[in-house]
């Protein structure tokens, strides 16, 4: 095993719980499609069903982080195709501000993210999950986990 792989494994070990809020429409749909197609993704991904990403506010995001999540993401319908008009866009605005807030606190802004997916395409959900994990590992590599330094 190379040194690099050791580091990677160490980081992988630090990714335990990633809370993903998925909307009842495209979010859940794409994750179900991914399951049916037996696609693979990191077992740290924990999906919570919500009606719409527009329902997820900074309160839920902070609840998850305060209770030990390593990262939080919202997955909604594609932009312009929200089943409840514009919930995904509103959620995106709030997450933008949350990211900014974390930067101001001196943390990476990669602990919180927003994605979209398409119900018929499982790979969109898996792509999102992989991106979450990748961003999180990079953040951990650079500055440690969100829990570090306490």
């Amino acid at each position, binding site marked *: 095993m190379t040194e690099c792989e050791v580091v990677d494994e160490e980081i992988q070990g630090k990714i335990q719980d990633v809370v993903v809020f998925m909307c009842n429409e495209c979010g859940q749909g794409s994750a179900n499609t991914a*399951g049916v197609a037996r696609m*693979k993704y990191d077992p740290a991904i*924990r999906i919570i*069903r919500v009606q719409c990403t527009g329902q997820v506010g900074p309160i839920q995001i902070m609840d998850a982080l305060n209770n030990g*999540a390593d990262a939080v993401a919202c997955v909604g319908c594609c932009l312009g195709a929200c089943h*409840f008009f514009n919930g995904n866009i509103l959620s995106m605005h709030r997450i933008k501000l949350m990211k900014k807030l974390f930067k101001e606190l001196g943390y990476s802004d990669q602990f919180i993210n927003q994605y979209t997916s398409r119900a018929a395409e499982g790979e969109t959900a898996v792509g999102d999950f992989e991106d979450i994990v990748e961003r999180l590992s990079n953040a951990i590599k650079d500055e440690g986990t969100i*829990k570090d330094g306490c």
Partner: protein
Amino acid sequence: MTVKEGKVKKTEQLGEKVERLENEEPRIGVFMCHCGHNIAGTVDVAKVAEYASTLPNVVKAEHYMFMCSKPGVQMVKDSIEELGVNRTVVASCSKNQHGKTFARAIEEVGLNKHRHQQVNVREYDSWVHQKEKEKATQKAMRLVEAGVNRSRKLEDVETRKIPTTKAALVIGAGIAGLRSSYDLAELGIPVYLVEKESTIGGHMTRLNKTFPTLECPQCSISPLTNGVANHPLIKLYTNAQIKSVDGSLGNFEVEIEIKPRYVKDNCTSCGECAAHCPVELPSEWDMGMSMRNAIYKAYPQAIPATYIRDKKNCIECNTCINICPVQAIDFSMQPETKTVKVGSIIVAAGYDEYDPSEIEPYHYGQEGYEDVITQLKLERMLSPTSLTNSEVLRPSDGKIPKSVVMIQCVGSRNDQVGNQYCTGVCCKFAIKNARIIKENYPDTNVSICYIDIRTPGLNFEELYKSAQEIGVRFIRGRPSEIIKDPISGDLSVIVEDTLTQTPLKLKADLVVLSAAMVPPEGIGPLGSKLHILRSKEGFLKEFHIKMNPTLSSKGGIFLAGVIQGPKDISETVAHAGSAAALAAAPLVKGYIEREMLIPSIDYDLCVKCGLCKTICAPAAIDIDENGIPSVNEVACKSCGMCMPVCPTGAIQLINFRDEQLLDEIIAVSGGGAICE
């Protein structure tokens, strides 16, 4: 939940309805499904069930081969009857697949179906982590714990039957509105059809031929116009508009304002009045290609055939009053307001042709450029009822043009001026008209300047080919300018043929602009009266572009035809038929069933900011004169978007409250708080 005294009645009922079962001790039954090998092959189901049994309030934790099978469902039912389980958690497949099976089962033995919590360990766990058995089992335990946590505080949600008003309102009597009205009426539903113009039929009656078969549009539409005008269940209001709309899905109350025609219904349409009227104006219906009087009928075949007086331009000489053989003319008629109750509303307000005068280099509408016209004007010239006897004549000198240049994408596909979208029908009608001109005047050169020719669908490519074969010239390039020779007065179109990269100066006796379809004037105020949302292009926004293109953002209000976005006639008719079917469904059934999965409001915390109303897309939040919000339970779509918006957290969607989500979040987040 608390309700301040003297608050809106509606919300007091709400208080009773979402009454929480705080006193009842939760007794949770957890059922872990093997799904054959689908789950059990990866997840150690026995271990998960064992873990579940240690969780607080869990009175039964089982695992079984197929929970969705008859014995499996019976296990769930038995636990309720024998152990007094009052909340069930089944860890198997997705909510969509078997969530309903178990919800129905617990309902059969007397529990509210919302007390069932489905945990998806198959799609979200065993199927996607097949190689990582240990981690998958750990994850399943977390997911089950989350389900148990969530189920602990689940509230009962009532399903209510709400009777609907068996009548529909259709706004706009173009082809879309007519189609919808007729289809609804044929289903036995009374229809109020409101048209702002004096006649019905819309843009289609103006056209010369319809593509791709070159049929006569008047002949195609007349069965529908006559059918609607004579249908016993359709009440037609022309010269009318919507004043206000109140209510929601199933029960709307609409005020219609009917402007006076100043001619009574006993008009025999003899035309004596118009013949003697001294005032002459360009006809709007004829796109200014002919004249009308101050008392007029839009066109000879107009329905209703009753004449109408243009009050603004009438000089009140009273000639018509005196000459009318049946004394039908009455200048004292007043506007009327009618209130109707309907269950569904269809908006079929159509479109306006884009006004190209915005595009400076094309000089449309400017003096000296009378020979620059739009396609609709060309249609009027070509039409059998035209002033020119179907001849194409230059507006400036009345001569037959020797060269015609058509410019595509005027107001479409342009980031700088006009609109970004492709109107989608201009290529087809330009090709159709080009072919007709070429057929009628073989000596006339006809060119079409295009960016891309878009003729998808059956028969359209053939139309394109036939135009090419007959000698219509296609030039790929967007013209930069139309110039006028100062001496000869001839028009030329400056364009670069981008295929050969040659700059061209095309001499044009007549220039025809294929103008875009744009949202009709006045759609903004209409949209806000209906409380429905518009897309950024200004058309009315559909509920979902793919899965529900006819429903608007608000339940019970449907979109038909171009008002949702540019369409050709066939698409419009299909869209209108779909709108009619969807609008009819709750009315034919007589009631709608609504799960009262709606937000509740804590009035002690509410600061009356009104933001919940602002973001509520289906306009389900009403604010009274004191600024106090209340939820319209029928209109609500249970999206929960009002929750994070509320600055004090006063509005909470039941079963998705902050504390209920928190319980679930705690279980999956793994513990070990970040430092504060």
